[in-house]
């Protein structure tokens, strides 16, 4: 993966597959350059046994193949920058993933095109779950929810509509540029 935002696109699928009704995505950059990406869902969660094994590339819940690389690749990139990966999960309650990156390390990936990732995520699961995005840095903060988009569109226009995707992408892009401008590329 060449961007932190691509890891997000990948890892969010786990929350969708877990049957979440709300997925909270957060990016928090502090003044020392540490960036925390968090993904919190209220899906089915993981058993302590699965949680124990889930960082291994040879762990997967799918039945067609024996490998699952999403979490191991994310952890590798977080650790390479001098950060790490934290996972908490409770069966029936949901899962919280936190990946920390030191954005001042030469080995840190750029944040990348977060707006395109959000548009793609929402297009892939237009009906549920609801997605919340919160971004914060010393430069400012923003928030975005699919509920507010849904409130305007009503029941007849799905969030996967091409014109809606374009709007979501542009509106998120406009807001995060001033917040994360320095670490996006």
């Amino acid at each position, binding site marked *: 993966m060449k961007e932190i935002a691509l890891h997000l696109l990948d890892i969010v699928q786990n929350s969708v597959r877990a049957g979440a009704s709300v997925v909270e995505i957060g990016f928090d950059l502090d003044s020392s350059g540490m960036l925390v990406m968090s993904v919190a869902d209220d899906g089915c969660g993981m058993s302590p046994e699965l949680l124990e094994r889930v960082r291994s590339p040879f762990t997967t819940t799918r039945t067609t*193949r024996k490998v699952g690389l999403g979490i191991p690749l994310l952890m590798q990139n977080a650790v390479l920058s001098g950060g790490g990966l934290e996972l908490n999960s409770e069966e029936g309650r949901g899962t919280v993933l936190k990946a920390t990156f030191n954005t001042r390390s030469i080995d840190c990936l750029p944040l990348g095109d977060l707006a*395109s990732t959000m548009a*793609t995520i929402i297009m892939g699961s237009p009906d549920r779950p609801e997605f919340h995005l919160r971004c914060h840095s010393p430069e400012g903060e923003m928030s975005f929810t699919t509920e507010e988009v849904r409130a*305007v569109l009503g029941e*007849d226009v799905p969030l996967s*509509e091409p*014109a809606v995707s374009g*709007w979501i*992408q542009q*509106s998120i892009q406009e807001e995060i540029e001033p917040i994360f401008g320095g670490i996006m590329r």
Partner: protein
Amino acid sequence: MKSLAELEAIRKATISKINLRNEDKDGATRVVVGMATCGIAAGARPVMLSFVEQVEKKNLQHVTVSQTGCVGMCRLEPMVDVYVPGHEKVTYVHVKPDMVERIVTEHIQGGHPVTEYTIGAAENN
């Protein structure tokens, strides 16, 4: 945030298109982009968004773009399947954003698959 008024305008503009599309569901062409870890790492996100952009730009009302998981041929990602009703599925491999416009005009609009981008062509090399 970009103005919600703009979103409201999009709602009004698309609602009639959606009704038209619902009347003719069986006639819809489906574009399916592989978006598992392998697809994403190989560059599927801009490919997916290019298809959506082309559908929007060319005002193609009977085309849907969706996402799928890993089909086990990770070395050929990004992969895109195109299902035109009444025709066999066509699988494109190693798709890049600059290939998308040709696939849309020649295959989806024109009815002629872009043979050189297909899995058949890639596997013969």
